[in-house]
């Protein structure tokens, strides 16, 4: 029986939370929250399976956990010896361990021989495993990505991976809510990556701590699913464990026909339910922030955390800058090798990386290729382009993107996390400056002593061509047709 009594308006987060509470939270205990989809990879799962073994526990719902290989996997192809070129024996052992654990516990693994293997946060949506209304967790902080579908998705530690394997549940206190409303049109050359870097710059690297963010407004509604994933992906870079976007026609169109999404009449029924997943009029958020899309330019980081951003036309904060919050700006400038007040544009670049769960989807690779087509990567620059999944790789190759990348002098790699977490041997050298489409510019993130500038795929590709940090907008016009043709034939 459905009650006609008016309910208190609820946020999208409230609705997702309420629908998954097994045991409500109380003064003395957190809520027990049911998890619909659990994604695992080789790096943060072995100790969780070991815990199950130690207690002689089975996986409660093996069909709700899916495994992939992405973090420590090589992005170079299998060698002449038929072996994957792992960075070391430990990395190989980690992959072998996940394979053994999945076999033993009956968990589906998207292994090297799967045409669907990919970075966990690329693969889940691509397969239609990720769906509106779900709770989704993974031992990876960028699980926030899946919030783009109106799913409550967040990163967990390895102990919690064990909790989900054993009970399909987590102990959680309900987070606060932060509405970030972005209205207006993004200017040409300004992408979802610029938008989220700008947002983190506004609210700060800890601006979302303790909160679940809901991204709202006309700018967000106009984004494609891939762009929405880029936005939600970096929620954790503002300290928020989860970011949400209410599902709409864009979401439903993306999911229709995906192999693991509901099919046929089930899909239509699902859509009817998914339409309820939005914040009600009058729903109250704990905090609200408004951002005007017109204020957003191509944006990059200059410092050593993702909140230290500036417009590409801007400058590193000067020593006396009132924005200098008291110490870490000076340290970041020193690490990055900037003079106080230096212009961002014109700084020589050593490495460019296009990839990661933030920006390795087909549209990202298309954007990078649109800049590279008919142009050459600057001789001083090493550029890696790493598709996010086997499917992205296939689709990109079907369009000739691999040819454009190679013709420009960049490397076209196998799918994986690669130089974002830099634990598979894809490294930026000490003191080198990398312009990267990944999500973290922490000290040493891309290799000991490496310096990272986070940017959009358009900006990264433009920097690769220019050999220095540069505004991508002059590169938006297509290259002369004749040169393009020559290169594509070559």
């Amino acid at each position, binding site marked *: 029986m459905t009650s006609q009594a008016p309910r208190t308006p609820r946020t999208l987060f409230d609705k997702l939370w309420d629908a998954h509470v097994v045991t409500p939270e109380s003064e003395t205990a957190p809520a027990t929250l049911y998890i619909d989809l659990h994604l695992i990879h080789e790096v943060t799962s072995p100790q969780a399976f070991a815990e199950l073994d130690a207690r002689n526990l089975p996986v409660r719902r093996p069909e709700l956990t899916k495994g992939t290989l992405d973090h420590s996997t090589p992005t170079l192809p299998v060698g002449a010896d038929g072996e994957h070129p792992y960075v070391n024996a430990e990395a190989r052992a*980690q992959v072998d361990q996940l394979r053994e654990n999945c076999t033993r516990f009956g968990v589906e693994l998207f292994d090297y021989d799967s045409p669907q293997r990919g970075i966990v946060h690329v693969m889940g949506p691509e397969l239609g495993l990720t769906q509106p209304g779900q709770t989704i967790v993974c031992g990876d902080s960028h699980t926030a990505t899946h919030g783009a579908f109106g799913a409550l998705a967040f990163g967990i530690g390895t102990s919690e991976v064990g*909790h989900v394997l054993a009970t399909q549940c987590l102990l959680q206190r309900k987070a606060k809510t932060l509405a970030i409303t972005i209205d207006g049109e993004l200017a040409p050359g300004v992408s979802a990556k610029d938008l989220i870097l700008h947002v983190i710059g506004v609210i700060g690297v800890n601006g979302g701590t303790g909160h679940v963010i809901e991204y709202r407004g006309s700018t967000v509604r106009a984004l494609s699913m891939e762009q929405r994933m880029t936005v939600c992906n970096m929620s954790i870079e503002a300290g928020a464990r989860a970011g949400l976007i209410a599902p709409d026609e864009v979401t439903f169109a993306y999911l229709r026909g995906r192999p693991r999404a509901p099919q046929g009449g089930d899909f239509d029924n699902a859509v009817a339910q998914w339409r309820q997943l939005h914040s009600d009029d009058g729903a109250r958020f704990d905090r609200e922030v408004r951002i005007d899309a017109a204020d957003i330019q191509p944006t990059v980081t200059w410092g050593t955390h993702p909140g230290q951003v500036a417009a590409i036309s801007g400058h590193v904060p000067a020593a006396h800058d009132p924005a200098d919050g008291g110490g870490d700006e000076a340290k970041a400038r020193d690490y990055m090798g900037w003079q106080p007040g230096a212009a961002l544009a014109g700084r020589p670049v050593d490495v460019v990386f296009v990839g990661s769960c933030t920006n390795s989807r087909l549209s990202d690779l298309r954007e990078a290729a649109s800049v590279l087509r008919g142009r050459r990567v600057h001789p001083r620059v090493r550029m890696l382009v790493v598709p996010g999944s086997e499917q992205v790789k296939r689709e990109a190759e079907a369009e000739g993107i691999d040819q454009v990348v190679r013709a420009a002098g960049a490397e076209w790699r196998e799918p994986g996390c690669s130089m974002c977490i830099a634990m598979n041997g894809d490294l930026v050298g000490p003191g080198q400056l990398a312009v990267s489409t990944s999500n973290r510019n922490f000290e040493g993130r891309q290799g000991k002593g490496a310096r990272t500038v986070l940017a959009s795929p358009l900006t990264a590709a433009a920097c690769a061509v220019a050999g220095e940090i540069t505004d991508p907008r002059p590169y938006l016009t297509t290259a002369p047709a004749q040169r393009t043709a020559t290169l594509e034939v070559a």
Partner: protein
Amino acid sequence: MRPFTELTSRTVVLRERNIDTDQIIPARFLTTTQRQGLGQFAFNDWRRLPDGSLNPDFAFNRAENAGAGILVAGRNFGCGSSREHAPWALADLGLRAVISAEIADIFRSNALKNGLLPIVLGEAVVDELLDRPGLELRIDVAERSVFLPGGSRVEFALDAFARTCLLEGVDQLGYLLRQDADISRFESQRHPSTSSRQEFVHAS
């Protein structure tokens, strides 16, 4: 987990704000399949000079900090990734508590599962602790309090459940496993099984 009721120890100080998990343990040390033995890699890239030798200026390398069980750090400690290797590495170094004006959500959650107590105190108190490394503090979990030398007491927020878990050494997985009946009920009521999908189709 061992019960954690009280700790008296000296502090070691890292003044930096926004110390992320890539600093606490760089990603290249995550290829392990074990929890143990990660302390040797804690803060590796701050602890070691480019030639691999120990940096004598780094707090954890100074003789006077040997055995310190409390880390006092700048605001937003533990931001970044969800790697539980971060609290594993810190606990393996011998740390039992981290004090900061702000601690990142996932790190805090992971720390509590490993007997590493995350304590958030007001900016003014933390600033004082940052300025005076090596102070001997007493932490009382039951009282949710830090006692400074001289006896002054500063209370900190600690979720009642987390407090019980620490005091009694509660095993969170065991706690969840005891909810099996509730979880099964939830699954049969809500989660799409063959029978519920069947109903769904009939309803359309």
